[in-house]
């Protein structure tokens, strides 16, 4: 909503309050003012001139030599190229020395040999937006009315020296979608009275109801329908002040009849519609629901097909307007119109909202009806329209109103205790304080025994419950005046849940291990949605995606991380190590998908680079696995984790492991399949993805100290020769099992499968540590345990001691 400061002054005394101060006050106590704009800012020295003569330039067809009286001793000669310039016009003249928008300075000039001392301006040249310039002057210079005073300030005459406040209205403040509404708000803030327009005018004896009959069939959708009839109107230009105000409000002037309805729309917030009475051949207006498939050609010349829940204004036979949304083409007021019917109605918000949405048409009128207009305004606006038509369109207003009213307009009475107001806000206001605030708002209120009873005026449809009253009191008392306290109550100490603590631990561990946290999008495309998924489910799809690229919810984080890796490698960053924790979305057929929290990582390039000492370690499978092992250590679940060779479509078939936690697969770690990597423009890249739920669910074991052993341990190294396809992990677990309680640690320290080995064989060297915390082990005991280990290994895996 654009609010003209000068227009507002018509309803309220703004002495001593600058537009900026007003904007600040309105912002602080109710409605955010998003900007204050002075249209004439940066424009200087533009006056009203009288074109005394206008002749064709002898050297140029399209130029005219004008002698213009600008209120000085001598006329000035101005060369003007506007097609519509003519002798006798009152025009806006930028004199020599004038400045126009864009810091365009007017200087003396010569055009094809003729001197030009200034410029006759179009409205656009004075900074008025092209869409607000009335059609008549759109292609040329603007003409003032003939009574305009020569030499006077043109910017003032055009009200461009005004200040326009742009209000950012929240949906609850529909009451401020009108100048009068803003005046009430301003009055409350400044504690100054509001002057409403005087609505007196003359009528002729003919009655409106004799000229047009009004009936409403759909009374639910249209509780109030009022029609005023004005005859013998002279359709023409509106007075300058009215045009100026419309432009300030962001509406393009058309003709006096249309302008008046628009003016009242802004002034009262009441949408009006004007029909050409002579086009309503039936002499009646019937408001009803449209017939399914009924058609109407609207003002914008589009043919629209209606449904049976759309409200229409008909002449008893055919629709003449879509109620509250847009008028029809055939009954429109034109330059030839003589007799006018003005509709002022209250349409149900839900009905207008539905119609407007379904036919895809929003207008100034519909957006107001949707939010709910003041039902009392319909009658006031009708009177105002009749008055302005008689004053500015020379119309004869028929007496009375042709009306169909099916609404009992009542003010809502709301009561609240003073105690509650103070309890909820934390203030210490008295009854008098509260009553004074309602007085400023021009809202009737009384206090009795600590109870404040308020009659919410119909113009404030947003006031419905006690809390709405608390807000009125608090905002006008001033949020600055509310003290600052902290809640006084008994609560438990705050903290993170075990799950949240584990999530932070995972984050710290990943970062400690050298990974950078990424955050990626949950929405992905059809191809990526199931790639790398630990479990493939039917994708969860959006009903109306904005693009195919973001249309389905991810089932794995890896594709997005790979996108980040590839983004960076395309920017000369060859090494990346990312991790992310976040949700994947797995449909299990229920109403909501199962949201699983996953940890994923992606690594490529060099893991370590220390060039001058010749250290250069590319990322490999064991780097990725080692990072996970560090995590298991931190989470205290190392004992419950094992890895098994596994396969997945997008991963290298020989370099992928399933991660098993307590016997259940919870994730994978592996190399991105070279084919897939090539497709994504990636070098050798390793990824992992882990479901965290099972680990989150498991209660973390309590930390308990074990005494430091007082007895020495004994180490034995063994080198075992085995078939190449026997997994080291298998041998290690056999060793552990066979070693019994004395065997404390098994560490693989060498792998050899070079040419000194027999074909198909490899050598694995382990270091075994034996210890008894209670005593020093004897050699025989160690030998006995060790022999048992070697036997078991040979028996179960075929591995033998290397000779």
């Amino acid at each position, binding site marked *: 909503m654009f609010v003209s400061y000068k227009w507002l002054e018509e309803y309220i005394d703004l002495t001593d309050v600058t537009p900026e101060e007003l904007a600040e006050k309105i912002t602080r106590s109710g409605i955010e003012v998003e900007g204050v704009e002075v249209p004439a800012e940066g424009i200087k020295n533009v006056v009203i001139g009288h074109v005394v003569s206008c002749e064709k330039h002898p050297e140029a067809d399209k130029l005219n030599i004008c002698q213009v009286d600008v209120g000085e001793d001598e006329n000035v000669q101005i060369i003007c190229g506007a097609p519509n310039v003519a002798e006798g016009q009152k025009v806006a003249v930028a004199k020599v020395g004038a400045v126009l928008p864009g810091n365009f300075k007017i200087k003396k000039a010569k055009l094809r040999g003729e001197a030009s001392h200034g410029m006759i301006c179009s409205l656009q040249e004075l900074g008025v937006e092209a869409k607000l310039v009335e059609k008549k002057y759109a292609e040329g210079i603007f003409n003032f009315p003939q009574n305009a005073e020569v030499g006077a300030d043109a910017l003032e005459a055009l009200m461009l020296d005004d200040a326009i406040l742009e209000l950012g209205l929240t949906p609850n403040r529909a009451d401020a979608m009108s100048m009068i509404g803003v005046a009430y708000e301003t009055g409350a803030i400044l504690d100054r009275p509001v002057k409403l327009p005087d609505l007196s005018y003359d009528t002729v004896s003919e009655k409106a109801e004799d000229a047009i009959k009004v009936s409403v069939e759909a009374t639910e959708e249209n509780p109030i329908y009022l029609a005023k009839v004005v005859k013998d109107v002279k359709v023409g230009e509106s007075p300058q002040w009215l045009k100026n105000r419309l432009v300030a409000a962001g509406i393009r002037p058309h003709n006096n009849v249309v302008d008046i309805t628009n003016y009242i729309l802004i002034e009262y917030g009441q949408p009006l519609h004007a029909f050409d009475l002579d086009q309503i051949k039936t002499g009646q207006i019937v408001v009803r629901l449209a017939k399914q498939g009924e058609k109407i050609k609207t003002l914008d010349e589009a043919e629209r097909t209606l449904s049976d829940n759309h409200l229409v204004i008909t002449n008893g036979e055919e629709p003449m307007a879509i109620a509250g949304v847009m008028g029809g083409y055939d009954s429109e007021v034109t330059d030839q119109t003589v007799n006018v019917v003005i509709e002022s109605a209250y349409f149900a918000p839900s009905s207008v909202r539905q119609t407007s949405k379904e036919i895809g048409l929003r207008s100034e009128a519909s957006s107001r009806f949707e*939010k709910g207009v003041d039902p009392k305004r319909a009658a006031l606006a009708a009177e105002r329209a009749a008055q302005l038509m008689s004053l500015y369109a020379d119309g004869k207003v028929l007496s009375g109103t042709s009306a169909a009213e099916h609404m009992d307009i009542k003010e809502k009475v709301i009561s609240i205790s003073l105690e509650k107001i103070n309890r*909820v806000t*934390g203030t210490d206001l008295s009854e008098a304080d509260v009553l004074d605030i309602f007085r400023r708002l021009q809202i009737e209120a009384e206090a009795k025994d600590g109870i404040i009873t308020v009659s919410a005026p119909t113009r404030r449809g947003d006031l419905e419950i006690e809390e709405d009253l608390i807000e009125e009191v608090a905002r006008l008392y001033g949020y600055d005046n509310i003290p600052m306290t902290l809640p006084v109550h008994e609560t438990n100490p705050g903290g993170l849940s075990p799950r949240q603590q584990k999530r932070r631990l995972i984050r710290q561990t990943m970062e*400690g291990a050298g990974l950078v946290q990424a955050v990626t999008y949950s929405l992905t495309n059809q191809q990526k949605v199931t790639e790398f998924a630990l479990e493939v489910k039917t994708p969860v799809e959006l009903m109306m995606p904005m693009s195919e690229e973001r249309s389905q919810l991810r089932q794995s984080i890896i594709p997005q991380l790979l996108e980040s890796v590839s983004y960076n490698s395309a920017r000369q960053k060859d090494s990346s190590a990312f991790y992310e924790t976040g*949700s994947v979305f797995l449909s299990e057929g229920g109403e909501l998908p199962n949201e699983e929290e996953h940890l994923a990582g992606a690594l490529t390039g060099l893991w370590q680079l220390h060039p001058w000492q010749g250290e250069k370690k590319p990322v490999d499978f064991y780097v990725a696995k080692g990072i996970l092992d560090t995590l298991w250590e931190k989470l205290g679940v190392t004992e419950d984790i094992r890895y098994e060779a596994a396969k997945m479509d997008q991963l290298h078939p020989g370099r992928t492991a399933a991660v098993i936690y307590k016997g259940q697969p919870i994730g994978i770690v592996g190399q991105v399949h070279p084919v897939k990597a090539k497709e994504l423009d990636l070098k050798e890249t390793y990824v992992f993805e882990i479901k965290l739920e099972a680990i989150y669910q498991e209660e973390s074991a309590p930390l308990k100290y074990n005494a430091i052993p007082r007895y020495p341990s004994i180490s034995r190294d063994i080198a075992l020769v085995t078939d190449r396809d026997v997994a080291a992990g298998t041998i290690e677990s056999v060793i552990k099992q066979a070693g019994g309680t004395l065997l404390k640690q098994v560490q693989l320290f060498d792998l050899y499968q070079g040419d000194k080995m027999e074909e198909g064989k490899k050598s694995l060297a382990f270091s075994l540590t034996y210890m008894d915390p209670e005593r020093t082990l004897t050699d025989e005991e160690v030998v006995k345990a060790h022999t048992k280990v070697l036997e078991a290994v040979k028996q179960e895996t075929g591995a033998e001691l290397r000779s």
Partner: protein
Amino acid sequence: MEQRLQELKQEALEKVQHAADLKELNDVRVAYLGKKGPITEVLKGMGKLSAEERPKMGALANEVRDQITGAIEEKQIGLEKEAVEKQLAEESIDVTLPGRPVPAGHAHPLTTVIEEIEDLFISMGYTVEEGPEVEKDYYNFEALNLPKGHPARDMQDSFYITEDVLLRTHTSPVQARTMERHAGKGPVKIICPGKVYRRDNDDATHSHQFMQIEGLVVDENIRMSDLKGTLNVFAKKMFGEDREIRLRPSFFPFTEPSVEMDISCKICGGKGCSVCKGTGWIEILGAGMVHPNVLRMAGFDPEKYTGFAFGMGPERIAMLKYGIDDIRHFYTNDDRFLKQFARKEIR
């Protein structure tokens, strides 16, 4: 004999003096003090001496021996020190050569902001609550006083999956769910961080996915002044002790009264600049007193309980704090962006 010993001593001391290294010194030791050395040889002739001279000569021989030994020891210490110094000189390195890098990762800046906010509220007795990102229309809208057909819930603004299920547009459904779990009994004192989604085209200031953190306190006697005081603590901890806050009226369907909180602009100190669009204030978050309908829907008696809620965008806070100009940076994971947040900011 005496003269011979003196000569040997003289000779030996000279050789000790001239020994160039430990090996030469050892050669001297072996040559003069060894069992086959000249002193031993000389002493072998002791038998020819008289009984009176014998002990004298013995004492002299020992003295010579001791002197040579002493000289050798002294020389040895000197030579050893020299050798160590020589070795250390050879071992010296260029300490300005680069150290060996240790792999070190870091958090995403949004996580840093979120955890900072979490920790601040945890210190004030809040717990952290979470909820699903794919949410029922009921919790996302209806339970928050946004019934079907409410103008503020345009289908166009949300990603629906079915008529009744959508990607949550705010973290408020977590509040609704948590209150419902409390079954009408206070206190509720939570903050809810998480991802939310809106049907926006991605540009410098919009992202179809972004983060939100909301807070909620419901109990008996929770006042608007408590909201103001809480937000003041938050603003000062997050943005600096010298910042002022102000509340402005606003509108949210789930709070009444509703406010927006601004903080004073750090850049211009309140005088007005381009960052604060000339106002001296920067909008940070929305808040308000929990709407009685929201309390009622969750099973709380609005006559007994009141509450406040607030909500903010970690992206916006990070953008303001660090001067980031484009929201898309948070989701591109460009290393040149992320690595700027490797450092921890200690305040």
